[in-house]
Every structure is written in C-alpha cells, then in structure tokens.
C-alpha cells in the first residue's frame, strides 16, 4: 500500500526531501511531465485522453489541479542546555500534551531521541495537572554535554516523529496521515487511466506552516478549478454532549463546504455529492468552520480558482499515531475518479 511508504517517510515542513523521493518514484511512470519547483513542490502533468468517442470529447480543455501536501508537523532544534539536552520548537501546529513520552528521530542521520518529563514520583501537588509547554521540554539524544549535542544536531536541525505503519484489518495506523493519506489518494488517481482533461497534480510543501507550497503551485498552474486532497479530523470518540464529530470513520470521504481558510465552490461540492448519490458512494460533509487546507491558498491565485477539499477521515490526526479506515480511503479514490470523469467545462458555468 503506497500509504505505508508515504507514512513512514519523513518530511517535516521545509525538509520534505525523503517523502518527495517516495512521491517521485511512485509517479514517474504515470505522469507525462514531472518537475520540482523552487520551493520543492512536485508538479506532475498527466495529459487528457484523446478519445473522440467519449461524451466529453470536443469540450474545451479545462485545467484541473489536484493537490496534496507532503509535509508533516515536527520539531526544530533551537538551542541546548549545558547537559546536552536539545531545546526545540514546533514546526507547524503541535499539541504539547502529546509530547511527553514520544520517540523521535533527529536530523538527516535519524539519531534516536526521546522527550520525557519529571517523573510522577517527584511532582508536587498541582504540578501534575499542568501541561508542560514546549519551551520547558527537551529532547534527549543521550549526548554528554552541549558540545556533543551541538555537533550532532546543529541549530536548525529537524526532528520528526517515529511510528511504524500497521494494518489492523479494516483500519490502518501510522504517522502523518495528514496528509500522506491525501498524497496516497493522488498517487492512486495518477496511476489510473487518463481523464479527459489535463490533470495537474501538485504534491506541495510547507502546508503546515501556512499553505506555502500550494500558493506558488497554483500561481504556476493557473487552474480553472482545484481539488485539495487531505487527511482530516475524525473526532468520533465518545463525548458528553451531542455535538459534531467533525467527521466519522466509516462514513466515507469528507467534503469541505467551508473552513477557516476558504468557502468551497458550491458547484464542485454538488458535482461530488451528485456523483456519490448516483453511484451509492458513502460521503459526509465535514463540520464547517474547522481547520484550513491548501485550498485556502489555491483559491486566491491570480483571478481566483473555484476550489473544494475532499478528505479521508482520520482519528488522532494531531498525534504521532493516526488511524483511518481502508474503506474510507478506497471510497475517496473512487469518489474522486468518478467525479472527475463527470467534470466538464459546463460544471463551471453559472445560471446568472
């Protein structure tokens, strides 16, 4: 499963080299042109099929962009203490509650490290209630002093989480499903048959630090419409109140109507939901108003790009071990393929 390789590859925002290599290797036989731009985005073009018998033949070529981001959240070394511990800061949004007890690898040589805190035995009364903030945590690589630490992990070195991908039956677990799940969906779409339009696939960098790669990719591609592919929050764990789970595992791909970064184009949402209902593909509407994705940057490119985000629901997306449903993943690929097959220039016309 390509998701295994993608999930286990490292690629913290700004340092996507390893995962980029996996992506390049996976798609090179399936794209007509591939290049890496100035920020490190992988831009791949799969020409449309030249099929004059198809019902969509003869239509003006539309430029369709699909994006998935290669980067994951991680840490960066910003200092040392005299005992050889590494001081770190988050790259992208990290929930500090998850840090104590984690396994990391530091730097291009993957030096093992751990984050631990003061043992419970030694805590004073209220101390155990407070969440240690990242400024007060350190990474232990076993260095003997500041000099060794500095030599092994110079300032600016990246540290990433370590999790083995596991198949649990109906589900799989691993790290960085946000957004290796989206990358895997995009790889699968590229591996399939050609569409009737030119498909511009962008495996973007630095989404987690501000939707950075997608912005320049969209400017370069100038698409007529865009679909961002993601791994998104599934908060279907038991709760006290009857409130939204954001998305639920097993209910199919999640379509974004609105989040903090953009409002989805209703015509593209309708294309997806009509296709799903026609073909009995399960789908859900992601809880509006939560999070942001590459579509937030893409829709602002040049004169504007109608956009939508489609995501695979993932539990614990904010932790080093996430969980998703294989059926949801496959249904996401299926929904995208079928919807894209029905996408024509007419989809983007307006009544008034």
């Amino acid at each position, binding site marked *: 499963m390509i998701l295994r390789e993608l999930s286990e590859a490292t690629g913290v925002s700004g340092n996507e080299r390893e995962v980029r290599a996996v992506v390049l290797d996976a798609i090179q036989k399936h794209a007509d*042109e591939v*290049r*890496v731009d100035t*920020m490190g*985005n992988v831009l791949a073009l799969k020409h449309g099929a030249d099929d004059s018998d198809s019902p969509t033949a003869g239509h003006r070529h539309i430029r369709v962009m699909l994006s998935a981001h290669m980067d994951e959240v991680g840490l*960066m070394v910003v200092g040392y203490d005299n005992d050889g511990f590494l001081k770190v800061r988050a*790259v992208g949004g990290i929930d500090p509650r998850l840090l104590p007890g984690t396994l990391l690898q530091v730097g291009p040589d993957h030096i093992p490290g751990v984050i631990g805190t003061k043992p419970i035995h030694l805590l004073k009364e209220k101390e155990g209630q407070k969440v240690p903030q990242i400024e007060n945590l350190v990474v232990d690589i076993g260095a003997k002093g500041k000099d060794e630490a500095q030599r092994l992990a110079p*300032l600016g070195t990246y540290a990433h989480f370590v999790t083995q991908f596991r198949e649990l039956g109906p589900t799989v677990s691993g790290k960085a499903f946000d957004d290796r799940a989206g990358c895997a969906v995009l790889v699968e779409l590229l591996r399939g048959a050609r569409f009737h339009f030119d498909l511009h696939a962008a495996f973007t960098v630095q989404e987690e630090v501000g939707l950075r790669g997608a912005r*320049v990719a969209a*400017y370069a591609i100038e698409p007529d419409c865009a679909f961002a592919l993601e791994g998104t929050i599934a908060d279907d764990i038991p709760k006290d109140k009857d409130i939204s789970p954001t998305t639920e595992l097993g209910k199919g791909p999640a379509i974004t109507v609105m989040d903090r970064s953009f409002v989805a184009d209703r015509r593209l949402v309708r294309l997806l939901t009509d296709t799903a209902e026609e073909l009995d593909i399960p789908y859900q509407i992601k809880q509006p108003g939560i999070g942001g994705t590459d579509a937030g940057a893409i829709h602002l490119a040049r004169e504007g790009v109608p956009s939508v985000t489609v995501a695979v629901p993932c539990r614990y997306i904010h932790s080093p071990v996430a969980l998703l449903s294989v059926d949801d993943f496959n249904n996401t690929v299926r929904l995208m393929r079928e919807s894209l097959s029905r996408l024509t220039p007419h989809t983007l016309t307006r009544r008034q």
Partner: protein
Amino acid sequence: MEVIPLLKQLSQIDGISGYEEPIRQLLRQTWKPFVDEMHEDGLGSLIALKYGTQPTGPPESTETSRPRLMLAAHMDEIGLMVTGIEKGFLRIGRVGGTDRRALLGLEVVVHGQRDLPGIVATRPPHVLPKEERKKVVPWDKLFVDVGLPPEEVGRLITVGNLISIRREMVELKNRCVAGKALDNRACVSAITLALERLAGMHHASDVFAVATAQEETGLKGAITSAYGVEPDLAVALDVTFGKHPGIAEVEAFPLGDGPTIGIGPNFHPQLVTRLKEVADAHEIPYQMDPIPGRSGTDAWAIQVAREGVPTALLSIPLRYMHQPVETLAAQDVERAGRLLAAFIAGLEAGFLEKLAWDREEGGSERTHDT
C-alpha cells in the same frame, strides 16, 4: 561611508508605514551614485537597480539574461496617528506595533498643518485608584498634548494626522547606538554599505535593492515589490531580538557577535549554506537563527511571490524592539553590509542551477513519455 553617522541620519528621518516619503527621498539621493535605475511601485516601495557587470548594460540589452537578485529591507517605522480630538487633546492610535508601555512622557512631533511638538500625556498616579496605577495605560486613556488652546488645535490638526517620535540617536559604549526606528533603518544602512562596496566590484547578477514600504503593517511592500521585480533569488534583511535579561536564551542573540543567518522552512538551504561559506571565507562572524515557521519579516512574503523565490534572511540583533531606545552594535551593521557585498560578488553565473532541490538525487527536470 561611516556607519554611525549613516545610522544616525537614517534613524532620525521620518517614514511611518504608509507615509514613507521623507525616507524614500533621502534614499533616492543616497543610493543614486551606486545604482543605474530607480522607481517606485504601487505601494511606495523604492526599487533601485544596479546592472550586473558581466556583461554590462541594462537587462534588456543583454543576450542571455543575468540572474535577478533582490535585496530587501523595510524603510518604514512604527508610529502614531491622531484618531480624535477632545477639548484640544489628541486621541491617538498606533500605526504598526508601537509599544504603548514605552510611550508615557515621550516627546513627539504632530504633523498637522505644520509640525508641532507634543507630549504623550496621561493622568498622574496620585489621582488614580491603586489597581489602575499597576496597569499599563490603555490606548483610550492616552493623549497627546501640544500645549495649544482647543480652537487652534482644531485649526491646525485633523483626524488622520501622523505623529512621529522625536528622538536623537545616541552612542553608547563599544560602538553601540540607541534610537528610534533602528528597526529597520539599521538594515537599510547595511544595504547602503553593500551598494557602496559593490560599486567597485564585479558581479554577475542584476542587483535590485528594494527599500520596502509598509512592512510593519503586514509585509505589504515586500509582497508587491517581489511581484514586480520577479527575482531569481532574494536576501531580506531585518532586525532580530538582542539579548537582554528576561528573554529566553534561545530567543535572542548577543550584540556584537555578528549578524544572524536564518535557517528553516522560510529559507532556501543552498542560500543558507552559501552565506555561511562566504562569511567563513571572509572571516565575518555570524550566528545561526533557527526559525521553525513564519519569520515575521519581508522574507516570508518574498518566498511565495509568483512561482516562488529562493530566499534568505540576514538579521541584526537589536534590543528593545519597537521602543524608542532600540539598541544595536554598529559593527554588526558593517558586517552585514560586507557579507552582502561578498555574497553578491561571489555568485557565479551558474549559481541558480545549484538551487534545484535534491540535486544529489539527479537534478530537477525529469520528463517522460508514457
């Protein structure tokens, strides 16, 4: 040019975000001898171009285009603005991140029909309830008093008039200087010194020196100037936090140990490496500044202009940022200027190719027929 008189001149002139005309005029004059062309963009950024020297001539005239290198330092400073007038006292608001903790008792200049001296005023502690004395004065309790009767104030001043800080730069020990607007006139000085050096050097790139407008209000001048210049690579300069009691060690740098080089997602790794190599070769001290995300500088905006720009950041450590006593070491400014000039002169014609990602794995362009 001597760095301390240059810093003094650039620090003391006005140039609040959105109203940079005085500093822009001064820079037009100062840079004129060192550049070939100058123009302004739609937001007021000043863009100066020094043609590359191999081969010579304006960019359009050469057969193979020279690399376009952009240098950026923001010329605007934070300040204040009149937001209302009540009984002859001026209500004020900030332009950019002016720190209200450092305003009380400050002498200012109100730019009305003519320039009027004023004082930042608030009620004395003796008459305030105890709890209020302990708090920082909120904006709506701060006023500027120009010492004139209300009718005259109404005649000379309106809502929207600018208020700048009146502060002469002073020299401290060890070539440290303190004044207002050293964020970012210090870096404008560094670029000026670099341009002066480059006048006598060969360089393969067309150098676009940009004094950006409105950085303090949202990196705006960087956004528009990078779009207009379309550089192949860029180096931004801004100030960073200088070491001081109460600031965590990882978040600040000692003065006098050289400029810092940014490392992190905002910066192209090959540019970072090259800057380090040049600094080492010329024995220019520097410090590494790890920035895990948003750098809060023009570099952040430039990196994502159009199809992306490989970007680097040089910073000068500065204490008391956004207070009228900003303090830095003059030698750090000199070093930044020297490093820039050496970096630019050392860029060989084929340097851009080295910026392709993952070159070790076989280059950036891969095309296949399927």
